[in-house]
């Protein structure tokens, strides 16, 4: 059976939001605050505008290609060779993202809840889940995502609301940060926080109605940006920048501030069930994209058949011995710049050139 399932509007928005929610569960807000400190709020507005301009550019540039993703556009631009190069780069990027997410979250679980378990055992649980989900198909992945996103959103909003009593205005001043260079110069690298941009390059052919692409992209972008802003404000206002250097996931730190009376002593345990569900959905989505790209590159009839191989490779990557400090180093350096160069460099460059070629061929 071929997976020709197409996404409805809400499903597509959920798909983008699950990416952002996972980034919030993991350490993106921490990295932002770590770099720009009290200037993070201004920095979020700054990178938000830049990324939004980029998003509009992507929408505009893709509008000339009906139902096409970045692979189709690169094939149009320079034939199969470029398509293969972009495809392989994309696969590597998704593997990197999957690897970082999986290892990071498994480490968090190991540290906080399952210290008796080996990390491999935790990783294996995720691998089994995402393999089966991909074998069931994209339809079920996208529907599961649209189920978990409202709950995850509610949980994030609840956490943010619950953290209000702990906010300290002193912690967010000076609002422009250490200096202009850090906030606006070095802070430019924080554009990677809107990592969701990568998915816009691949979203259009998955939509039931490609004409909704603009609406879906803008809506999901605004919600994602707002979530990022709220999390960063909460983190910054609750923890002073000096004490926020604990490399534990951002939402987890916020949840630990919540008190629900004497009965539930550790509220974070309540959320962990939902977060595991969210991470499973997100990882399944990453594997789906890897399979989908691979299918396009080698003309496979069905991407499901390579789910085992893709998941095994991801599992193999997690076997590389890594401690949490190394993972955070990868996230803060390699991961960050790979994403920036993909979003702002390769992707945009190909789209611009392809548009020039298209307009020339019309003339």
């Amino acid at each position, binding site marked *: 059976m071929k997976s020709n399932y197409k996404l409805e509007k809400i499903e597509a928005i959920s798909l983008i939001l699950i990416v952002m929610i996972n980034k919030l569960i993991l350490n993106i807000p921490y990295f932002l605050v770590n770099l720009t400190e009290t200037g993070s709020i201004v920095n979020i507005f700054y990178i938000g505008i830049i990324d939004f301009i980029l998003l509009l550019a992507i929408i505009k540039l893709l509008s000339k290609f009906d139902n096409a993703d970045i692979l189709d556009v690169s094939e149009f631009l320079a034939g199969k060779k470029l398509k293969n190069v972009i495809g392989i780069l994309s696969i590597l990027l998704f593997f990197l993202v999957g690897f970082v997410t999986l290892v990071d979250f498994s480490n968090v679980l190991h540290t906080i809840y399952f210290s008796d378990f080996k990390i491999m055992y935790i990783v294996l649980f995720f691998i089994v889940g995402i393999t089966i989900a991909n074998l069931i198909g994209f339809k079920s992945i996208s529907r599961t995502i649209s*189920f978990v996103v409202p709950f995850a959103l509610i949980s994030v909003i609840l956490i943010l609301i619950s953290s209000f009593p702990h906010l300290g205005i002193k912690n967010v001043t000076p609002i422009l940060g250490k200096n202009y260079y850090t906030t606006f110069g070095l802070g430019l690298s924080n554009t990677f926080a809107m990592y969701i941009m990568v998915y816009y390059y691949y979203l259009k052919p998955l939509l039931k109605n490609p004409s909704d692409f603009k609406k879906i992209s803008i809506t999901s972008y605004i919600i994602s940006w707002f979530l990022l802003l709220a999390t960063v404000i909460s983190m910054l206002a609750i923890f002073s920048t000096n004490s926020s250097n604990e490399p534990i996931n951002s939402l987890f730190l916020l949840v630990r501030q919540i008190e629900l009376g004497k009965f539930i002593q550790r509220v974070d345990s309540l959320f962990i069930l939902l977060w595991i569900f969210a991470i499973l959905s997100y990882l399944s989505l990453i594997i789906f994209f890897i399979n989908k790209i691979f299918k396009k590159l080698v003309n496979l009839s069905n991407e499901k058949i390579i789910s085992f191989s893709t998941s095994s490779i991801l599992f193999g990557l997690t076997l590389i011995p890594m401690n949490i400090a190394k993972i955070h180093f990868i996230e803060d350096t390699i991961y960050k710049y790979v994403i920036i160069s993909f979003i702002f460099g390769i992707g945009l460059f190909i789209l611009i050139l392809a548009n020039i070629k298209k307009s020339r061929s019309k003339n």
Partner: protein
Amino acid sequence: MIKNIWNNIFSYKEKEEYNFILPNSSNNINEKEFQKEDTHIVSTNLKDNLDYLKIKYNMLINSDIKLREFELNIQNKKIPVFLFYIDGMVEDDAINNFIMKPLLLKNSIKMTEPKKNQIIDDGKQKYTKFNLENFLYSSLIPQNSVKKENEFKEIVKMINAGFCILFVESLTNALCIETKGFKGRSIDQPITEAVVKGSHEGFVENIRTNTSMLRKIINNENLIIEETTVGNISKTKVAICYMKNITNDDLVAEAKYRINNLDIDYLLSSEQLSQFIKDSMTTAFPQVISSERPDKSCNYLLLGRIIVLVNGSPFSIILPAVLLDFLTSPEDSNLNYHYANFLKGLRAIALVCALLIPGLYIAITMYHYELIPSELLFAIISAREAIPFPIIFEIIIMEGSFELIQEASIRVPSSFSTTVGIIGALILGEAAVSANIVSPILIIIVAFSGICAFAIPDNSLRFSIKMFRFMYIILGYLSGFLGIALGFFLHFSILASQSSFGVPYFSPYIPYNNLSSNEGIYINPVWKREKRNSFLNTKKPKIESSISMKWRKNEK
């Protein structure tokens, strides 16, 4: 003599055991032979017809096949005839009063009636010819349903369905007279879907009674009841009911396509049929609704769904179905919407609790004890201190026993079921705690999850929930919340890919449709249930006008 006694006591005798072994299938009937169509037609020679039927119905060994041979006295001629029927499937009074009496007593009166004589002009002279077949059909058999048939294939079908067949010498057609008279259960209260407010009528085994119950509620000519047969041997009657002006045509076509394309020997119940026509073969969750209530079935019928009735089964199949339907009680539509919503919400919570509570308990007590207050944790630990078994063993024993008691109380005669309940409660409750086999808190957990399961209105859903509960217990034991989240994720993924007759299982939420006023978990007040479910794509989306209570408007 001593020798005999000696031999009887001590000598070895081989025991004569009765040892029947079922032989290999040496006398199998060839499948092609079995499927060969009967092409025989009625002969003008009465004896040929009789012999054929005697062989066909194995009359020498078949006890309930009845044959009544007699002679008609028409125009001073004696014409041999015979009646053929199956005892127990016909109404004796109908045969005696409306077939035998007219044929044996009244025929002499009618024989001179001129209208029955056909005028034949052969060119040379005009003369009247007596048409026996028309005479019998029009004047002698005062029955409302009489069919002329000359193919034995059809005649046999009708005999099997409870018709009485009249064969007459020299006629090429047999007269098939409807005299069905099965003995069956009278209309009674539905056992599995009892309600306080609402109708107390339930379906019975007779398909015609069931269709008439639908007709009784929906007095509209657009209610279509199409009939078909399923089962090469059983020829079970199946009725497909829908509202012609409401239900989506493609849905009707799909239902008919699936039902008409079943190559099976027999069909005994609607549950069996629902398994044959469901979309996904792998999932344990129900995909069609099963109901023994005509009012519930009619409600769904009027909302644009299809009802399938199977002869011999007191349950209707309602299709398509979404998960929310299984949380809806037939009473919901009769209750004030405040209560209905409260109860439906309670049922939704009960569903989650029935599925997850034992698994969560095991996960919390083993891995996430930081969640509960220290006092409660100490209480649990001290209660478990004297118990020698691991918690997984304890919980599986209790859950298993609970299911066993339930199963046993269903199987035993009703007079014993109370005893089984008491024994179960005493032994598994009091005694197990006193013997330090289980902890008291576990009894509470198991009892609570059991009660939650009973709050689920649909039987099939309840069974699947109870079954999957064990999976969550094992996952909770293996890895706490991690295992439960993984199990729930996979469970949800499987269900999310499922659909019932093209309708996604989590409709109308996933994929999200613009919710109409009459769908979703929230039940609107009766005056606000304006639209039918959008996921059904019905021909008539509106149920009521935007202002249904016109009297309120008129008052102004």
